[in-house]
């Protein structure tokens, strides 16, 4: 068994190191990987969903077992119970094992956290309608965003979910979660899939057959108006570009990680950063909206 220690704080930044650490064991003879969560005190909603997708990838594609070390003795830290309340352990595959035991929470405590929407699977298009309704109700109930702001957020969810269903060819359902961070004064919306990823989709476009786009270039192209797998002539490809427009309108930060690249943009400030990391199939997006 190989142990992957998780840091005290796990966000999209630290997750890149975790990913790198995991990949060294992809073809190693070891049969079990153990994530050591015992010293972790904070996991962002985005990192939580990435960890979930990574666990599934290790079990499904690498054919290895996964175990989570959640504490060092019979008494677990409160952070593990917070994760339990967020639905994290419940969303992990059934074959995952826990040391010393799986943190459970009383049903009455579920939902008593800062999550606006706990990790939610989106099974198919029909289910997507229900999820958007859930998102709308949850944000309306738990935040002070105006009616139009809520509609804009739902529009972003709708556009991003369509990308999952039409382009990702994902082996599993999409995932959505929304979390409020009172101290940081922001709300994080996460939408993720473990599909083929934006770069693979964009490279199929007739507009890019002669270009050898890198993953970063492909993500940057994907947020341009009219760029889609079918090519500009198809008159589609407005979903992500509209999300960028809405992110700008709400002074939000948009972070897109797909395959081996990530791009982060804070459009209203004209700031953007990009980087490359380990190949992690699929598209994971978060949008950080400042609180009102």
């Amino acid at each position: 068994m190989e142990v992957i220690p998780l840091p005290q704080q796990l966000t999209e930044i630290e997750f890149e190191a975790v990913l790198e650490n995991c990949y060294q064991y992809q073809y190693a003879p070891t049969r079990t990987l153990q994530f050591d969560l015992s010293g972790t005190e904070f996991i962002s909603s985005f990192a939580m969903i990435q960890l979930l997708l990574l666990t599934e990838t290790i079990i499904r594609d690498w054919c290895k077992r996964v175990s989570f070390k959640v504490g060092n003795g019979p008494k677990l830290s409160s952070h593990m119970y917070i994760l339990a309340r967020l639905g994290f352990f419940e969303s992990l595959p059934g074959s995952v094992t826990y040391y010393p035991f799986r943190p459970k929470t009383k049903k009455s405590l579920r939902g008593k956290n800062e999550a606006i929407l706990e990790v939610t699977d989106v099974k198919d298009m029909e289910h997507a309608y229900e999820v958007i309704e859930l998102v709308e109700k949850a944000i309306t109930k738990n935040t002070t965003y105006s009616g139009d702001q809520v509609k804009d957020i739902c529009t972003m969810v709708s556009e991003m979910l369509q990308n999952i269903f039409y382009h990702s060819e994902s082996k599993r359902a999409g995932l959505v979660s929304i979390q409020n961070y009172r101290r940081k004064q922001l709300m994080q919306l996460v939408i993720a899939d473990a599909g083929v990823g934006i770069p693979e989709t964009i490279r199929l476009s007739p507009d890019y057959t002669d270009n050898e786009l890198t993953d970063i270039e492909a993500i940057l192209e994907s947020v341009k108006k009219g760029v889609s797998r079918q090519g500009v002539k198809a008159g589609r490809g407005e979903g992500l570009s509209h999300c960028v427009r809405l992110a700008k309108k709400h002074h939000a930060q948009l972070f897109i990680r797909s395959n081996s690249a990530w791009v982060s943009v804070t459009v209203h400030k004209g700031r953007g950063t990009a980087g490359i990391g380990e190949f992690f199939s699929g598209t994971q997006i978060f949008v950080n909206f400042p609180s009102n």
Partner: protein
Amino acid sequence: MLEIDIYIETGKKKRLWFNEAGVQLRGNILKKIADHREIECVKLDFKRVEVTDVSFAREAFVKLLSDLTLEMNRPQVLLINIDDYVRQNLSLSLKDHKKFALITNSQDEWDLIGKYSQLAKETIAALIEVEEATARELAHRLRIGITTCNNRLSNLYEMCAITRKEVGQKSGGVEYMYKVCT
């Protein structure tokens, strides 16, 4: 005149999401138009519709205008009772595809949304004032050349913003009488 209630047509949905649903709605609208070949104007009533994402708007309404452009006898399309939020997204979608549409609000005030020129707006305003006119009559009123006026009216007809019918000329040629349903 054909009036289509979008809320009813989409199975009583106030929130219009996803391009597939938009494609379906466009198909239904086109079928209704095909069943009423002689109609001059189609009113799409957005009462009770609260949101539409850009993918739905593109498939249902922007592409509807494109599809109707291929029809020989294309009716005017008028969007009515549009809420401000829906109007915003629809306008963006139309702009992205370099199209525009005629709308009226609950006070029967008309406007254009999408990507349009002031000349297009001015021409529609003049046509609404006179109720109906040939290119020659409107050119006289706007103090512009007949060819210019003809071009403007053709563009508006292409965009389904106005309607027209053939009227015989004394000389034997064909002339069109243009009008706007509001």
